[in-house]
Each structure stands twice: as C-alpha cells, then as structure tokens.
C-alpha cells in the first residue's frame, strides 16, 4: 500500500495552503449546485405534475426533500461562516420593528411548537417599541434559531417558552426563556463557538452542524448589539440579545 505524504510531494504544490475558510467557501459553493438540482427534482415529483405517486412514495420523497433542505441549510451556514472569517459578511442594516419580526417568527413556528407540545408565549410590549437598526433577514434567522432551539431542546412533557422585548436605555433587549434540557456549566464557554453541540443536543437532532449560535453572535455583534445567555434557576436557559435603537427623524 502506498501512503500519500504531502511533505514529500514536490515543489510548491503544498507550499501555499489555502485558508480553511477559503476551502469551506469553495466546497459550500460546489455543494449548493447539486443540492438545488436534487431539491427541484424532488419538488417536481412531489407536485405529481408528471404522474401520480402513491402515498408511501410521497411520504419518502417528502422525507428526502426535508433532508435536502437540512443539507442546504447546513451548507448555507458554512458559507456564512467562511464569509464571516474572511471579513466579507454583509448585512443590510435598516430601521425595523423587532416586535413585528418576533411576532411573525413566533406565528410561523406556532404549528411546529404545538405539535412538539410546547407553549410559546410572546409578551408583546404594552407601548410600541422604537425601531432598531438591523438586517431583517438576518435578524429573522437569529430569532428562528433561538426560538426553534428552545422548542427542539425541550424536556419530556409540556414545555413553556417565554419571549419578551423591552426597551433598555438606547437599545431593545430580547429574551427567550425556556424550561428545556439546558446547557452544562462546563460547556458555557463553547456555546457561541463554531460546531459546538452538546451531547444531549446531538442525541435530539443529529443533523445540526452547530453553527446557529456562532452565526447569531456574528449577526448581533455586527449589528452593534450583544448576545449572551444565563442558566435559569430551575430548568433551562434564557438567551438574550440587544440591538441599538435607531433615532428616527420626525
């Protein structure tokens, strides 16, 4: 058997190693293409435009599609990580209502939450909150990640998630409190690092890449805010982030 040894390999071939973020970027771009092809084919089959399929076949194809979408999400997350590391990540900052986006995300996740036996309570602020400066798509991504993590990593039985928004000085503070499985104290330092996944999280959802919280941190900090978490007294965690209020000219 011949073993490949790059050290013995000749002149300059391995001298200039590409940065890992560049490799990730190239691989992610290459993967996006076949993923979009497979996704389109599955959608075409499921639509039954080209002939009827039986219910079992449809069920399998829908499962395939769900997994391709997961793969697409992981690849997109990887691409975002590489852009962050290369300093090329772009946010389209604009004044927006965090309240409206939070409400929309909560509504979108409501069916799934109910099916997962989770009560999601969004305490809408009594007075209208001022707008914040952020990228609407990316903030939606952060909210979806934090709230869906709370739903996904629940304990057995009925779970409760409380979401709040309050004005605090020149910023809006978002919080998402759950009574889920929580995070072990020894893992606290790793929570916002790339590819961090607790053992419990891996058991519940083996397909995750452990990039969501890393991306959340990047998005919030690039928007001028902060993100952190605390362990609740009894069970679960509370995740917080702040975003700066935009002074609107009247």
């Amino acid at each position, binding site marked *: 058997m011949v073993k490949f040894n790059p050290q013995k390999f000749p002149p300059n071939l391995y001298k200039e190693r590409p940065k890992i973020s560049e490799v990730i970027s190239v691989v992610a*771009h290459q993967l*996006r*293409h076949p*993923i*979009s*092809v497979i*996704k*389109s*084919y599955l*959608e*075409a089959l499921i*639509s039954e*435009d*080209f002939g009827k399929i039986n219910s079992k076949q449809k069920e399998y194809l829908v499962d395939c599609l769900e997994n391709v979408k997961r793969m*697409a999400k992981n*690849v*997109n997350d990887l*691409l975002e990580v590489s*852009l962050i590391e290369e300093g*090329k990540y*772009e*946010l*389209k900052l604009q004044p927006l209502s965090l309240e409206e986006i939070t409400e929309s995300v909560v509504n979108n996740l409501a069916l799934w939450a109910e099916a997962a036996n989770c009560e999601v309570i969004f305490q809408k602020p009594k007075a209208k909150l001022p707008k914040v400066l952020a990228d609407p798509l990316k903030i939606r991504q952060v909210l979806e990640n934090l709230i869906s993590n709370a739903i996904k990593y629940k304990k057995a039985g009925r779970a409760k998630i409380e979401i709040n928004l309050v004005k605090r000085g020149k910023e809006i503070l978002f919080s998402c409190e759950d009574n889920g499985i929580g995070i072990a104290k020894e893992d606290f330092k790793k929570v916002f690092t790339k590819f961090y996944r607790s053992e419990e999280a891996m058991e519940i959802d083996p397909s995750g890449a452990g990039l969501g919280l890393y991306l959340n941190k990047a998005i919030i900090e690039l928007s001028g805010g902060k993100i952190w978490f605390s362990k609740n007294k009894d069970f679960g965690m509370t995740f917080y982030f702040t975003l700066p209020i935009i002074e609107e000219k009247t």
Partner: protein
Amino acid sequence: MANQKRKILMIEEDRFLRKVYRDKLSKIGFEFLEATNGEEGLNKIIAEKPDLVILDLILPRKNGFDVLIDIKSNKNTQSIPVIILSNLGQESDIRRGLSLGAEDYLVKTEVSLSQVVDKVKEQLVRVKT
C-alpha cells in the same frame, strides 16, 4: 395571439436544472428555450425575442451580470423581464443584479421550483398589464 405560447429562455449551464425547468414550464404551457452559456443566451434573446429570461450568473463565455448589462442596454431587448436564479446569495450580488435591471433575484437553494414558476407567471402578468 391568445393561443400563442409564451417563450421562456433559461440561460443555465447545469443540464439537470435546465431539464426540470424545461419539463415543468413546458407542462404548464410555456415554450421553453435554453442556452448553456452567456453568449449563446444573448444570441437566442436577439433571435427568439423571449417573453422572459431566467438567468444564472456563473456562466461560461459571458457571465450573467454582463449578459444582463447587454440585455438592458439594448433597446430591442431591454423590456424583456429577467429573473436571476443563482447560487450567489450575498447582499452585494443581489443589489448588483437588481440595480442592473433584473426584475427579480432568486437564490437557488432558498426557493422552490413552484416559487420560481410563480415568479415567472407574476412577471409575465406585469408585462401584459
């Protein structure tokens, strides 16, 4: 005229994607034209005068941005709606595509086949009205 099929030109290098869009759009009554690179795409736009173009950006011979510039700077083709369907999803790419005159910008991994078809129909209705 009412029975005349509306022509959709897809400029896309990937044969698999062309195939699924060819099947889908032909099935619902469009005439599907295709080109595998930017130059061929531009030639077909001039020769065939499609009602709408679905344009990828990473293309051999002439990239999609340059194709778009040529379409929108030629008075014979500038009114043809262009939907960009690309894997480039960075904000700067989207901004550039729209500022060059594309009617819509869709990221391949983020939209479904039926969403693209809906966008095609939407744009054609706009052109009609």
